[in-house]
């Protein structure tokens, strides 16, 4: 299991190739790359995102989410790569991947990691737009997406 915080741009394909090469007996590798958008919800042009982080608690939160996916689904391994610092539109913010014998648990694990990352990862995100800057907080959609996993497996 690997969770990595990156201060500089990364290439999701390279990370994914390296992850897949380490798998011993996988029949499926599922992944999702989150990319910085060029426009905000209001349609304003975004100059960049700034992801502030805590030097110890942020990496720990990524580790915890990857480990939880590994414990919860029938997967061989899980990977999270997450950017911090200044991210330009079009650059990858996050890569979540899971390798498994079968596709369903791999896809579920990626979905689960992304839902937890959106609400629980220790980041503070500022959107620097042409019309000003704004610190972003999780949306109600993010919270309900996370709650769905608790309903599926109470306790």
């Amino acid at each position, binding site marked *: 299991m690997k969770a990595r915080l990156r201060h500089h741009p990364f290439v999701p394909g390279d990370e994914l190739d390296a992850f897949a090469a380490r798998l011993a007996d996988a029949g499926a590798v599922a992944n999702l790359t989150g990319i910085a958008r060029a426009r905000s919800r209001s349609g304003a042009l975004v100059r960049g995102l700034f992801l502030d982080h805590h030097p110890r608690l942020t990496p720990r939160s990524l580790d915890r989410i990857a480990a939880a996916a590994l414990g919860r689904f029938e997967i061989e391994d899980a990977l999270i790569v997450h950017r911090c610092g200044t991210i330009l539109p079009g650059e990858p913010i996050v890569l979540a991947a899971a390798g498994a014998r079968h596709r369903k648990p791999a896809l579920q694990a990626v979905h689960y990691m992304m839902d937890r990352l959106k609400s629980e990862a220790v980041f*503070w995100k500022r959107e620097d737009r042409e019309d000003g800057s704004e610190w972003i907080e999780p949306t109600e959609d993010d919270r309900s997406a996370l709650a769905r996993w608790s309903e599926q497996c109470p306790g």
Partner: protein
Amino acid sequence: MIILLFGRLADILGREVALSLPQPCTVADVRRELARLHPASAAELAASRARAFIGDAMAREDAVVRDGDEVAFFPPLSGG
């Protein structure tokens, strides 16, 4: 003691503030003193907005802060 700030609070106060308070003092005292010295941060520093940590552990308002401690205030997380 060193106070670490993140997110919106770091925009207002910078990443680090050094503070000297009479001992013994609590998280609530640190919060109050910081808000007194930097009124622009007061609303964001409110206990209902910013969670306090001593070292890596979340701390209650009545937790005792010692001189060499690293105290951090976390505005609401944005998530990844």
